[in-house]
């Protein structure tokens, strides 16, 4: 059933690949990487070193082979051996380095993105959750975060590495043999076109996989939350069927994706082999005529083979970034989403003012004397008005009962009072001040709300009671439990107040 929700207009943009990369999104994500400048720079440095080392090996080979041709047995291999050794150590160190810094950067980023996302989920108002499926939010905060940090860390690595390799190899080839080099480089545009063709398709199927993944997360959530209802209505088989359709879709999309990738890679390999072949023929003829040395030919052939590896990597990351773009936008939008209910600038300014010693940090943080509703009206985002023109005055010490038919607006009234939502008409005054001029902290810490379905957090009973006042001691907890008539039930349990694992 939840299926249809993910096709909703608001969310469908995730599933149509963006034609072009929007740099803004990635620059914003890059700010996460920039918080760790040391790791970032070292990672890029390692990538460049790996690239340079890989370019240097064929050159050493070339010199050695040419020297063998020149000096025969009199060749001095010691210098080359030393150079080779240095290159090996550099390569090894750089590989160690990029695994190290890449892994660190990825973990840092996914940690930060997740923390910022969670922090904002705590700040966002109730209405935000009315509009977004839990599965969607959970997929954002789990797999999308992981994926983005992967792209950022390993993508950065491969981008630097690829550019170093391609620039280095192109330069070396053109310097060694301009004509032959040009022939090899000419295959580049062709490869780019093929890559683009395949990667957009690979991207589309992978997107379908992710979209389905989002729904599967949602289905898990719904079926776990509703397990009792499913059981008593004997819906197990039905649910399994529905879930089966989702996983079938994931399965089909994943296979399409694998097939596309399976076709793309051999094409790149074939092209690279073809280019090597051309280099072999042309270079072989030139070498036979003595136009180039054997060493040059060998270095050239090695370069040709390595030249195509980065293209594949670049195409992969380019497609991955295109595909993840919507994810990136979503995660960023989630992190940057502004709660519709938050302290106004005036309140923030007031809170920022230095306080005299001993004074309350917030002058409004005082006992509630009067609650006044003035012509309060409210409608939910999409719905019809729930409350009309409510006038109400409550004095300190009064207890007031709100009664009415179901759907009459009782819960809404409470939600407004607790400022989970704000009135869409009229205003609510606390101590004769519009409650929007109170800080949320001051207002809500003055309210104790018991909801229709009370959510208990993981932890002991004492922990859950202490939730309202973290500084409460054992006696205060006991008093509160007795007042709520829960004490007898609690002490009847073997572990009493320390009973945990809800």
């Amino acid at each position: 059933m939840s299926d249809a929700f993910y096709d909703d207009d608001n969310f469908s943009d995730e599933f149509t690949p963006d034609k072009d990369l929007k740099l803004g999104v990635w620059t914003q994500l890059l700010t996460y990487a920039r918080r760790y400048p040391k790791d970032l720079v070292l990672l890029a440095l390692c990538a460049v070193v790996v690239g340079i080392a890989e370019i240097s090996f064929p050159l050493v080979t070339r010199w050695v082979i040419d020297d063998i041709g020149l000096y025969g047995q009199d060749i001095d291999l010691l210098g080359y051996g030393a150079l080779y050794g240095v290159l090996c150590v550099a390569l090894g160190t750089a590989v160690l380095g990029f695994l190290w810094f890449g892994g660190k950067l990825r973990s840092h980023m996914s940690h930060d993105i997740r923390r910022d996302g969670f922090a904002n989920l705590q700040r966002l108002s109730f209405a935000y959750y009315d509009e977004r499926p839990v599965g969607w939010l959970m997929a954002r905060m789990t797999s999308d975060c992981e994926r983005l940090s992967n792209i950022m860390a390993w993508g950065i690595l491969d981008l630097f590495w690829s550019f170093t390799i391609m620039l280095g190899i192109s330069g070396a080839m053109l310097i060694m043999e301009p004509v032959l080099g040009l022939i090899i480089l000419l295959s580049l545009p062709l490869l780019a076109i093929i890559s683009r063709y395949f990667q957009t398709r690979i991207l589309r199927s992978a997107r379908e996989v992710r979209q389905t993944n989002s729904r599967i997360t949602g289905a898990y959530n719904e079926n776990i939350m509703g397990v009792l209802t499913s059981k008593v209505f004997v819906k197990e088989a039905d649910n399994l069927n529905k879930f089966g359709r989702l996983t079938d879709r994931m399965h089909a999309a994943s296979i399409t994706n694998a097939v596309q990738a399976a076709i793309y890679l051999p094409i790149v390999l074939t092209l690279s082999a073809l280019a090597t072949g051309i280099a072999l023929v042309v270079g072989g003829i030139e070498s036979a005529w003595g136009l180039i040395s054997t060493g040059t030919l060998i270095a050239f052939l090695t370069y040709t083979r390595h030249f195509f590896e980065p293209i594949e990597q670049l195409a992969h990351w380019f497609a991955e970034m295109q595909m993840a773009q919507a994810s990136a936008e979503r995660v960023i939008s989630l992190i940057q989403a502004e709660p519709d209910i938050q302290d106004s600038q005036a309140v923030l300014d007031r809170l920022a003012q230095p306080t005299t010693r001993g004074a309350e940090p917030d002058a409004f943080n005082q006992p509630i004397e009067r609650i006044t509703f003035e012509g309060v009206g409210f409608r939910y985002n999409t719905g019809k008005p729930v409350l009309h023109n409510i006038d109400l005055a409550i004095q300190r010490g009064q207890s007031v009962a709100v009664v009415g038919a179901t759907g009459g607006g009782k819960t809404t009234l409470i939600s407004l009072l607790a400022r989970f939502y704000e009135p869409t008409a009229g205003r609510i005054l606390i101590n004769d001040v519009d409650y929007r001029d109170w800080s949320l902290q001051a207002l809500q810490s003055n309210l104790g709300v018991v909801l229709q379905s009370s959510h208990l957090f993981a932890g002991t009973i004492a922990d859950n009671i202490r939730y309202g006042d973290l500084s409460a001691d054992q006696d205060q907890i006991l008093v509160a439990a007795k007042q709520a008539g829960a004490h007898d039930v609690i002490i009847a349990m073997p572990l009493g107040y320390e009973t945990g694992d809800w």
Partner: protein
Amino acid sequence: MTIGTLFAFITYEGMIIWPIRHMGRVLTDSGKAVVALKRMAEILSEPEESNLEQALTAPLNGQIKLDSVTFHHPGNPPVLSNLSLTIAAGETVALVGAPGAGKSTLIQLLLRLYDPQQGALWVDDFDLSQLSRKSVRAQMGVVLQESFLFAGSIADNLRIGQTQASLADMTEAVTTANLLGTIQALPNGFEALVGERGVTLSGGQRQRLAIARALLKDPAILILDDALSAVDTDTESQILTNLRRVRANRTTVIVAHRLSTVMQADRIIVLDHGEVAQIGTHETLSQTPGIYRKLCELQGQVQRDIQQSRTPEGNLL
């Protein structure tokens, strides 16, 4: 060795190094995979609800019998101890008792969500433990304390127990649950979305939707587990009247705290600490000293207090 061989050799050597570049990632991933595998295995190796027992083939009459039933959750004191009681087919029975008295547990046992450690439950002439869970649940209509609505339309949620239900059936069920007006007032009526991202239904409206959903099954045994708690007394009494009409001669078990909900029941069973404390009608029990009478006094007292405190201006919201 020729230069050609040397070159081939060097090329091979270069190729061997290449996969090592990926080894780091593969090693990390396989470490994660081992952990993931263990966690999956934990879930997969959990024993499943068995469903091999005899399936009910004919509709039940709706007689319920508990024979010295004792039940406790692992590591906890018994919730029900040596509980015996009989509910006749067609009877409307109310279960009352303080929170923790064992009312919901009794219902969970009836649904075979748990099996008792001692004693037996019988429906009609069948030992419940010998019947397949699915066939038992298929004959019961249950409205749970917390009504869970699946994301989807109101019609989807109504049809959950009765996939083939027609619009007329649904209309009848929601009329009995006193919800028709609410649904008709929604922009899309029965097609309005509820659950995640759907319209916001109040607690009472959700309860009534859950009642309609259970009624649509036309179950042999209807169980309302504190299912009218969020409904105002007016609506409640209308629903109870409707229920008496559509559930005439069908077994109905109502768990409730409010007197107004239980008063009309054929019999009231008072549970206390997992045992039957009292059984009788409202008339007899309210005259006999005991838990029920105390409840009557308390709730009656509250009623009188409200009437007395009502000021001439009628200052009650």
